[in-house]
């Protein structure tokens, strides 16, 4: 199975690619449309510089070559949601050339996927077919929105790899702040190219599945489509090159148009826009502002002592990584990772909340970990404190104070309890001394219990060892 993806990512800007109209999502139909976006006579496009900056930024994030010379061309075809009768896109001279990213697979391994190119283009409007029994409506709010089309090389060989690619790409653009990556709002959409072949054979004929808008659907669509192609070939048929649609309801793909019906787009340089010439210094300045990207961050986390798995989980979302770093600040890195990925993630999951809705802030969680580190509370008590923090939103120290959970580290006080426990269980001492080593745990448990869980376990251990061996 050979897979290549074309991902359309809406550039995160306030205004559209060629007009000053707002590019935000969710407004009432046709309320964010300038005469430029509606293709009115005499209207001219003017490039939004911020879009170019973000495209370059993305290119750098994909370790790709930035082309200082690029050209906007017109892709001509008729459709009611394409007001100008052409889409302004880049064709022969894209702004970003070849690059590569590393994807993380479920088994913990990684793979390099090549990027063919990234180009900037305007989005079309949206046809609404469900507003009227016999007519279609057109909403031009999206018309002219800035998109980056990121084309991968056909380097993926399974649905999982494709899913991992989309996930990684989304993480990168979010880290870069160049696209919000919200697939359900359509700010990231995928066209999936799938073909199958026997090992060693040359590439099979591919089919393109248009507008797949979630990672799960990408996976489903590929699985279905590959199976379909294999069935066709095994049944003695041949694959026709065509564009297909993914039906989210039943997880199948169906033919939309064949190669014979393909448009002749008659691309030519848009005479309303001069070729885009960038200065190397412009690119260098952007390079200086690049944040640490997921792969670099992951490597750093591993160097800090985290497992590859924990590091991957933490860096997958920019916000989670940032949260973790705040928690880990002056705390044990590994313990911080456990708390974020296990305790906090579990509690959030149970409460149906996302990380940014967490009742416990990163600073608060960090505070809790500090109390463990300085022996104010034990790890066991910490779990109870955390539950109270999650429920109330209060600081760990306040809860510890309030509930009197402060760990007892006063050796004298603990010794008193140990003595009490020993006095109460002379028979068990005898058994222990006769070789029943396992009973040591019993004494520890009893002591902790008697202290209300507040006795420092290490001191309890020490004292018991000393006294029982005396």
């Amino acid at each position, binding site marked *: 199975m050979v897979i290549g993806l074309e991902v359309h990512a809406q550039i995160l800007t306030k205004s559209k690619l060629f007009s000053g109209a707002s590019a935000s999502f969710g407004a009432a139909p046709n309320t964010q449309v300038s005469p430029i976006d509606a293709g*009115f006579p005499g*209207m*001219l496009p003017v490039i939004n510089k911020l879009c170019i900056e973000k495209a370059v930024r993305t290119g750098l994030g994909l370790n790709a070559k930035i082309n200082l010379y690029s050209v906007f061309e017109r892709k001509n075809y008729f459709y009611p949601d394409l007001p*100008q009768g*052409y889409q302004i896109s880049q064709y022969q001279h894209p702004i970003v050339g070849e690059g590569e990213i590393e994807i993380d697979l479920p088994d913990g391994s990684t793979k390099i996927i090549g990027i063919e190119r990234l180009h900037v283009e305007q989005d079309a409007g949206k046809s609404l077919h469900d507003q009227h029994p016999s007519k279609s409506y*057109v909403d031009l709010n999206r018309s002219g929105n800035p998109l980056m089309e990121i084309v991968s090389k056909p380097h993926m060989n399974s649905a999982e790899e494709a899913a991992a690619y989309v996930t990684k790409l989304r993480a990168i653009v979010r880290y870069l702040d160049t696209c919000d990556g919200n697939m359900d709002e359509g700010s990231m959409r995928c066209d999936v190219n799938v073909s199958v072949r026997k090992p060693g054979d040359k590439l099979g004929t591919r089919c393109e599945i248009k507008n797949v808008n979630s990672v799960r659907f990408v996976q489903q669509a590929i699985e279905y489509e590959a199976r379909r192609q294999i069935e066709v070939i095994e049944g003695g048929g041949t694959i026709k090159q065509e564009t297909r649609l993914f039906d989210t309801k039943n997880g199948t793909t169906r033919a939309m148009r064949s190669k014979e019906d393909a448009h*002749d787009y*008659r691309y030519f340089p848009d005479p309303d826009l001069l070729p885009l010439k960038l200065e190397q210094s412009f690119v260098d300045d952007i390079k200086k502002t690049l944040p640490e990207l997921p792969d670099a961050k992951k490597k750093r986390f591993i160097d800090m002592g985290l497992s590859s798995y924990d590091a991957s989980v933490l860096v997958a979302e920019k916000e989670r990584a940032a949260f973790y770093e705040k928690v880990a600040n002056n705390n044990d890195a590994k313990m911080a990772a456990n708390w974020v990925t296990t305790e906090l993630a579990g509690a959030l999951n149970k409460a149906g909340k996302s990380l940014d809705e967490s009742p416990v802030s990163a600073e608060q969680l960090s505070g809790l970990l500090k109390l463990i580190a300085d022996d104010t509370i034990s790890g066991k008590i910490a779990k109870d404190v955390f539950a109270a923090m999650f429920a109330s939103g209060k600081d760990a120290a306040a809860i510890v104070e309030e509930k009197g959970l402060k760990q007892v580290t006063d050796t004298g006080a603990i010794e008193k309890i140990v003595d009490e426990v020993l006095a109460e269980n002379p028979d068990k001492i005898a058994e222990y001394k006769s070789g029943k080593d396992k009973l040591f745990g019993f004494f520890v448990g009893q002591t902790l219990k008697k202290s209300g869980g507040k006795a420092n376990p290490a001191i309890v251990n020490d004292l018991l060892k000393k006294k029982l061996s005396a």
Partner: protein
Amino acid sequence: MTKLTSLTIKEALDGLKKKEFTATELTEAHIKASEAAQHLNCYITETYDHARAQAKESDARYAKGEAKLLDGVPIAMKDLYCTEGIRTTAGSKILENFKPPYESTVSGNMFSDGAIMLGKANLDEFAMGSSNTTSAYGNVINPWQRKGDNKPLVPGGSSGGSAAAVAARIAMGATGTDTGGSIRQPAAFCGITGIKPTYGRCSRFGIIAFASSLDQAGPFARTVEDCALLLQSMAGYDPKDSTSVNRPVPEYFKSIGQSVKGLKVGVPKEYRVDGANPEITKLWDKGVDMMKAAGAEIVDVSLPHTKYALQTYYVIAPAECSSNLARYDGVRFGLRIDGKDLNDTYEATREAGFGKEVKRRILIGTYVLSAGYYDAYYNKARRVRKLIWQDFINAYEKCDVLLTPTAPTPAFAIGENEQDPVTMYLNDIFTVPASMAGMPGISLPVGLSADGLPLGLQLLGRPFDEETVFKAAGALEKAADFTHLPQSLQAKAA
């Protein structure tokens, strides 16, 4: 003819300043003249009430001593310029009821400078034509007639209504657009002056596109100086047009009257075409002599790729037009003919909305851009275009301006040259090369043909060197001393 309509813009501005007459009086005189010349069909939409309101405001500014560059000057606006709230048709049925919600930058500039709009001037449909006969609103009639022959003549095109209005003294000046000669050729046919500035000098924002890499706005007037005044108002950088150029606009009128002593005037040998009209050749020679007499130095130059200019133009311009006109689909504005489905609606709308010439160019343009023909036509044309541009750059190392005829013939009768499109296209043979190269060019009347029709010569200059073009044109205008009037005006004057 009233006295007010025979004034130049410069004279009118002086008179207004001296309070010899008001903007309202000047405007009313032109409205009256326009009404009397209705048979010429210069306007698609008359905007007299709008003009009266503007005149009133202008008078108020004069009263307060706040008059602007063009305050109170009544002009015609080519109906390719979008005017806010005022019907703008591009000479096409497809925009019959289109009222733009925005103002073109150039018309806006002129209104800010106090110009008064009498009407939206007739033109070839979407500026595609050389005779104004492709307009969906009827052809414009040239105010000039051949001696002893009352056959109606074309005003040239595409800015035919603008040129005829200025020649007929129903507007003091007018705006045009020039894609392959659409200002210079009608200026020559109507015996007036018109300049196409350098590509990028005037904003194209709000001017309905024909061929975006060629379209350029420019003025018509009856003198070189008036053209300079109008262009000064029209020109300037516009951030809304990415192809407009950010450089200061000089005070062009200051170039006029300057000596051309030592100015190098190039005469390109390739413009001496086989079978040329001898009257045109004679006029050209006369122009060369006039420049020489004025102190200029004549230099023979060569523009070797001239012979490919027209063919190249008829690949590039239709290619761009086929894409530019895709937006007229009946979906959002303009004419819509409902069909049984979407494609049928597109076809019916465009079939009914576009005229023959527009359809022809859309077909040519679609063809030259289509897969399999792209390299042979469009790409080759782009390469040749670069060579044409290089010709000019090379020539300007030897000379400061070029002097050539504007059109191969004087105005022809309506219906002539219609037998095949190529004959019509040949009208632009002298104007197209400068358009392809983006160079500025002015046409001014220098003499009459044997049957009494005006003939023009063209001066081309370096990119953004309109000042030298105006200087040379001022000298040629003075030497030619063209004072002839169209026959209809002569009769009235007598």
